[in-house]
């Protein structure tokens, strides 16, 4: 509870926590999945587990784009960049993600031209500044980032910039939720829906979760109070035997989403028949590729791509952790072979990955407690 005083409106937080305890009672156990990696990070950072009663269990979902990207895609992207005159541009999150021959940063140390960009439009700017080179943007992300990549490709075409391409790894959130619900070892009561993905897709795409699967889902903001309020809304539905889509994050998320962003995605991308997700396997129609109209800006169509498939080390149990079957610390490699400094599985690489979040906050806290009990 030590963080509560630092939060905005600490009194309201305490009141909401009280309401959660009252609604949750003690009779049954509730399993709620937060889909978004940003929520996972916030839950650990804010110590929300200490505020929630023990019979509410938060399961960390698949919404960290770096974590679900198979290692073979990193190898594929890097193999394109190994060709002469190619600049490899990617978000900072990607730089430490290991491929079989090392991360983009390690390739940079060996002489590859690797640049961190904040925005796909910065990658396009690199192409303008380096007309004699080819800039390949390694695109990752859910529907939050996909429209920005789409618009950047449209701008490249409009300006006739031909030394620029996108290696597209954009994925879509709904098929991943469906795959998790279809998984036989999965038992979930409700979902905390992603905040910023929903600014783009809106709330309608979640309706099948409520109607067909009878699971409540509440789209949530990222502040501690937002997430606690979302838990209250979910508990109220569960207690009443209801299953609805609700929007706690109305101040940012319109019910219909952002139509201009959806138009840009529809203009540039098409669904892949299937795509591999790390830990979840192949999921049909779960990812985007650049369509033929924009083929010239598609790195997969412009360059030879080896199509590398890499199996994760058998001992790593990323898949089980990703589906919430295991807690991060229950993986055999957690905190020993696999740490944020030397990640083996991708869940340890990004601060939004559940293993890294768990390691950075819970694990450290446990170490402090055991130290102080010794003293």
């Amino acid at each position, binding site marked *: 509870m030590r963080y509560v005083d630092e939060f905005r409106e600490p009194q309201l937080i305490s009141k909401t926590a009280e309401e959660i305890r009252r609604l949750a009672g003690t009779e049954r156990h509730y399993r709620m999945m937060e889909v978004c990696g*940003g929520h996972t990070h916030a839950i650990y950072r804010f110590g929300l587990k200490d505020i929630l009663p023990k019979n509410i269990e938060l399961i960390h979902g698949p919404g960290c784009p770096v974590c679900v990207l198979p290692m073979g895609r990193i190898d594929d992207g890097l193999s394109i960049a190994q060709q002469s005159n190619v600049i490899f541009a990617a978000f900072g999150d990607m730089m430490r993600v290991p491929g079989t021959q090392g991360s983009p940063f390690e390739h940079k140390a060996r002489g590859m031209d690797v640049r961190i960009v*904040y*925005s796909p439009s*910065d990658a396009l700017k690199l192409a303008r500044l380096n007309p004699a080179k080819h800039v390949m943007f390694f695109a990752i992300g859910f529907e*939050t980032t996909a*429209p920005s990549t789409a618009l950047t490709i449209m701008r490249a075409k409009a300006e006739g910039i031909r030394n620029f391409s996108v290696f597209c790894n954009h994925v879509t959130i709904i098929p991943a939720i469906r795959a998790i619900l279809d998984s036989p070892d999965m038992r979930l009561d409700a979902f905390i829906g992603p905040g910023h*993905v929903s600014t783009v897709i809106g709330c309608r795409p979640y309706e099948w979760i409520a109607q067909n699967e009878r699971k409540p889902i509440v789209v949530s903001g990222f*502040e501690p109070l937002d997430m606690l309020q979302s838990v209250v809304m979910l508990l109220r539905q569960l207690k009443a035997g209801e299953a609805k889509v609700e929007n706690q994050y109305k101040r*940012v998320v319109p019910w219909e989403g*952002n139509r201009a962003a959806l138009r840009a995605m529809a203009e540039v991308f098409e669904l892949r028949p299937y795509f591999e997700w790390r830990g979840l396997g192949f999921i049909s129609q779960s990812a985007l590729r650049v369509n033929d109209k924009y083929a010239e800006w598609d790195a997969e169509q412009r360059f030879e791509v080896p199509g590398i498939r890499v199996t994760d080390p058998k001992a790593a149990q990323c898949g089980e952790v990703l589906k919430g079957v295991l807690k991060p610390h229950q993986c055999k490699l957690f905190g020993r072979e696999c740490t944020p400094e030397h990640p083996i599985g991708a869940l340890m690489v990004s601060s939004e990955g559940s293993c890294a979040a768990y390691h950075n906050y819970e694990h450290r806290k446990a170490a402090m407690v055991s130290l102080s009990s010794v003293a």
Partner: protein
Amino acid sequence: MCLAIPGKIVEIASDNQDSAVVDVVGVRRKIDLGLLQDDKPVPGDWVLIHVGFAMSKISEQDAADQMNTLRMLGEMDGTMQEVKGYGLEEVN
């Protein structure tokens, strides 16, 4: 990656309606307004920015709250580094 940063629109380019300069806690940066075509912001409006693109219009209060969340998440330094575009696109 899922986080977005609030910024205040300072000016919109006269030759390109999709290009704006925003102020993010004192740092000025060019952003793209192309994803808000249906509801164009004007100077003085606050927007949530994700990877260099304005994603939605928000109120000034929400902007302050969002900034506070980033601070509490320990993401301010990293986010500001990103906003500066690693030196690529700062506007003076």
